[in-house]
């Protein structure tokens, strides 16, 4: 039975989708082909913005920074989340307490987390360098050092977000029938063997989902650099989404910013497509 009234129920969401997503996606494709500074009307220039960006050394550095950040952040973040979930998988005393504590940073705003960690990372009187000094290590000025600033931001982001993927992994682990483990245990399989042969294949679809979403999230890193470094020192923490922001709202070059947005979109799509391609090789299908 087809019903027309369904569209009435869908109306708000469809209006929102058209006005705030579909329309803007197309508008920004057009804007990317124009020279547009906020005061005057956009002037069509064809592919000029793209050509200029691709010939710009800074653009490639920003792309490099973004990939470097994802390279640091994604494996560490997914690994820590999975480890947390495995630790909390069994019914143990205090499980609610630990789960709640590990999730607290997720609930905190990124701004607040970034401010707290800027203080912890302080090169002279920060907590981290104090703790390192107890082990005789002379810590760098984390956020003022071009080599350490991006890793420091990645580490802080792992702390902030690990609890979220932990929850998703916990849900995945809860779906594994316990008799699989029981049977393997009776057969004398070690816990590592059980992890490799049972747990890992059975949660590989969840792992895949987490990897894809975490990678997309990593490419969008923005608030951390906005609060902690403004892209500096130099351009060492300038990532794509912050660069788009700067181009649009500090330099008011909206045409170029739109082109950057599209290049960014293409990179995210290609990365996701690659992950889906590789999927067949390692994700277990029952």
């Amino acid at each position, binding site marked *: 039975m087809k019903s027309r009234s369904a569209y009435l129920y869908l109306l*708000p*969401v469809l209006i929102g989708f058209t006005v705030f997503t579909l329309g803007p996606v197309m508008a920004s494709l057009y804007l990317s082909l124009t020279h547009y500074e906020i005061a005057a009307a956009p002037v069509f220039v064809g592919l000029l913005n793209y050509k200029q960006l691709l010939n710009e050394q800074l653009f490639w550095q920003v792309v490099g920074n973004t990939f470097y950040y994802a390279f640091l952040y994604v494996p560490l973040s997914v690994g820590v989340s999975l480890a947390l979930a495995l630790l909390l998988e069994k019914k143990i005393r*205090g499980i609610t307490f630990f789960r709640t504590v590990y999730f607290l940073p997720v609930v905190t705003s990124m701004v607040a987390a970034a*401010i707290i960690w800027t203080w912890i990372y302080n090169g002279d009187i920060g907590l981290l360098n104090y703790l390192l000094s107890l082990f005789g290590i002379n810590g760098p000025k984390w956020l003022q050092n071009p080599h350490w600033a991006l890793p420091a931001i990645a580490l802080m982001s792992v702390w902030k977000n690990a*609890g979220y993927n932990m929850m998703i992994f916990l849900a995945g682990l809860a779906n594994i029938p316990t008799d699989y483990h029981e049977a393997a245990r009776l057969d004398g399989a070690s816990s590592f063997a059980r992890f490799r042969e049972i747990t890992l294949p059975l949660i590989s679809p969840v792992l895949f989902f987490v990897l894809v979403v975490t990678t997309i999230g990593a490419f969008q890193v923005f608030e951390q650099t906005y609060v902690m470094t403004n892209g500096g020192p130099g351009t060492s923490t300038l990532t794509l989404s912050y660069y788009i922001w700067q181009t*649009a709202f500090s330099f008011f070059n909206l045409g170029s910013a739109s082109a950057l947005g599209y290049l960014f*979109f293409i990179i995210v799509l290609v990365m996701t497509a690659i992950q889906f391609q590789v999927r067949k090789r390692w994700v277990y299908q029952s």
Partner: protein
Amino acid sequence: MSNESILAGGTRWRKVARYSLLVTLALIMLGPFLWMIVTSLESPEVLVQFPPQFIPRNPRFSNYSEVFGELPIATFFFNSIKISVLGTIGEVIAASLAAFAFARMEFQGKKWIFSLLLATMMIPFQVTMIPVYMIMRSLGWLDSHASLIIPHFFGGAFASGAFGVFLLRQFFESIPKELEDASRIDGASRFRFFVTILLPLSKPALAVLSLFVFMGIWNDLLTPVLFLSTEEKMPLTFGLAVLETVQHNFRYDLLMAGTLLSVAPILLLYVFAQRYVTDAFLRAGVKG
């Protein structure tokens, strides 16, 4: 017998190892929060000392009143509440209407529209940001809370909207269809069934969605920074970012006091509602 005790010994060892790891990780997760509390109670003279003091000898609660004097924290707080509450109401209404259509009705293009909505989750906000900014400008909503609230009544314009539709659709589908048939036989309209029967039955799912949407809006920095410019309009996140640039590298006592004031409400909300959050994750359980 001896074999068994060896096994028990093994598990005891394992238990000790597991708990020490759990506690260490808990300290790492909690540490920054505790450090924030400690710092917020120190005097500026103590803060520049190295090694740092871990327990404030004379806790300075005046830091908190000083923050209130420095910035209109109460106004920020009120703005955050207003934007988050109204935005959450709007998004939950829009999402439940759409989810009802997807869960219970057949219509032309259903599959197509649904996948299109899902696909929007893939589009980074950086792609739509500039046109959305221009739309807000032409609507005259720049530097007004309308830009941050009204889009949520249309399904949450910025990325997260589809998530709610998805979550609620799943829940609505789990409610037996016979209930609807029965209420229709009694002469109730479909809309009436939706409002008086389906929604009350879906309270757990609605609560979870509200919680997620509320936290998302409360913690958002990007859209307030994009649309707002006057201080009296700012939510806590934006105000905090401003406080950070004003106070950069000095008076961390004040900065931490302000940060604590901004995170306390949401942390408390979570601690009370944590059971529902966990349930939501376990129920949504992603399947490849």
